């Protein structure tokens, strides 16, 4: 019993130490706002993190929009309410699936790449030599990636939602034959700017912040060995995915009020 308690205590302390190091890293990197000379570094990261994720976001968005439209249409057609496909599609995407699926894909594509890149830089002593040159890696390497992820994730979510709705239009209207007027007017009448789009984007911003933070920290804090890097990359994807899903529940609870 004592052994178990000691183990739990040690693990808790280890976890708290990790959280402390991650918080310190984030605070030291972001506390100093970017200088004009840092803008090009951030733009490059927006390209690496955001632009290079566009293909997977577009393909997944289209597929998810198409399959949701297919399911909604099949179910709603039984009640003669095919026109409601547009409303259902928009609400499900803007409120939940858009930010959540984008964050999961973001963690898998960009998050793992960030961890592997920083981990490799640490393993090959590139971060260390940078420090010895009088260049702060928190400013040069960590901060641009944090900003890049923070900026990219909401933009990718907007792209995901747009393409997913287009996927729904292709399946619902062009293929299954739903009425375009009902499809679009239902969407326009029901979707609210803040309640649906705005709160969905709040989720995207929070997810972007958390996933990028985890990815950068796992790379920065990894054991400088091949095994350590592999472990850190896996941790990034697993921790990000679990946290995104858990946070989505609590953010929904917090923003959309009392469900009882």
């Amino acid at each position, binding site marked *: 019993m004592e052994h178990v308690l000691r183990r739990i205590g040690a693990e808790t302390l280890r976890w708290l130490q990790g959280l402390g190091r991650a918080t310190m890293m984030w605070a030291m990197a972001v506390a100093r706002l970017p200088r004009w000379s840092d803008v090009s570094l951030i733009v490059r990261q927006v390209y690496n993190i955001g632009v290079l994720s566009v293909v997977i976001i577009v393909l997944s968005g289209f597929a998810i929009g198409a399959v949701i439209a297919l399911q909604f249409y099949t179910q709603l057609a039984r009640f003669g309410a095919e026109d409601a496909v547009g409303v259902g599609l928009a609400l499900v995407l803007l409120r939940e699936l858009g930010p959540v699926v984008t964050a999961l894909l973001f963690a898998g594509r960009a998050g793992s790449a960030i961890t592997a890149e920083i981990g490799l830089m640490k393993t090959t002593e*590139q971060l*260390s030599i940078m420090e*010895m040159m*009088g260049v702060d890696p928190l400013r*040069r390497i960590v901060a641009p990636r944090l900003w890049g992820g923070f900026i990219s994730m909401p933009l990718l979510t907007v792209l995901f939602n747009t393409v997913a709705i287009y996927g729904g239009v292709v399946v619902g209207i062009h293929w299954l034959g739903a009425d375009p007027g009902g499809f679009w007017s239902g969407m326009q009448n029901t979707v609210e700017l803040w309640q649906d789009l705005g709160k969905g984007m709040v989720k995207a911003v929070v997810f972007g912040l958390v996933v990028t933070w985890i990815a950068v920290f796992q790379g920065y804090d990894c054991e400088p060995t091949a095994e350590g890097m592999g472990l850190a990359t896996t941790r990034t994807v697993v921790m990000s995915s679990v946290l995104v899903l858990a946070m989505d529940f609590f953010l929904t609870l917090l923003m959309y009020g009392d469900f009882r």
Partner: protein
Amino acid sequence: MTESLGPDTVGSGAGSTGSVNAQTADYLIEIDDLCLMRGEKVVFDHLSLKVPRGGITAVMGPSGTGKTTLLRVIGGQVRPDSGAVYLNGKDVCRMSRSELFEARRDIGMLFQSSALFTDINVFENVAFPMRVHTDLPEDTIRDLVIMKLNAVGLRGARDLMPSQLSGGRARRVALARAIALDPDLIMYDEPFTGQDPISMGVILTLIRQLNEALGTSSLLVSHDIHETVNIADYVFVLADGKVIGEGPPKALRDHPSRRVTQFMRGDPDGPVPFHYPADDLKYDLLSEDV
């Protein structure tokens, strides 16, 4: 126990006060009563030494004696448990993060792994410190980079990526990058390890030539005796976290301490035994234990 054979102006010498004193001008680095533990292991046990300005100073010792850690302590990357490390008269251990980054601009460092930035080419690697720390126009940076690369014989390789270079050439590029800002001090971490004879000869020559041409001080950490003895002006031998001997390289071969001479001559047996501690061989052979 430390036994100095060198001139009076060099060495760990007694009487270091650990503060900025009149002698500071003679020494670029003063390490005073340095202690560092890593878990249960004692890395430095009240270590004191002084590195003079100019010339090539070597720190030698068997693997695992903390030679690389010593360079990291001097560079402020590792904080000791106690003691002081004065670089140009300022205590590195008490500098703030921003002061440390400022002080490191005067240090060039060559890592064992070269540590070139893998996402940019040779030219950009050498230009990196200039771009970050100076406002020099692009034309000047180009000329300076070409001159630095020419000094290490790799002007023609400026468009190659680090992955296209052999280990020896990568180390030479890293050397060109280390001298990019004409530092006061260049620290070399095991520069000869893993080099073929030609690369070894090139690096040896470069270290000597650069030290003379730039007028810098060089601190070299190595366990390669022959190469180090060839270029070093003064040598410290570390063991068990302390300086066990110091002096000009030739004098150290006849050092009174058997531990120092065993290392300097590369004797397989001596105070550092050939055999791992075990029972008597006869007893082991006659024993019936399996």
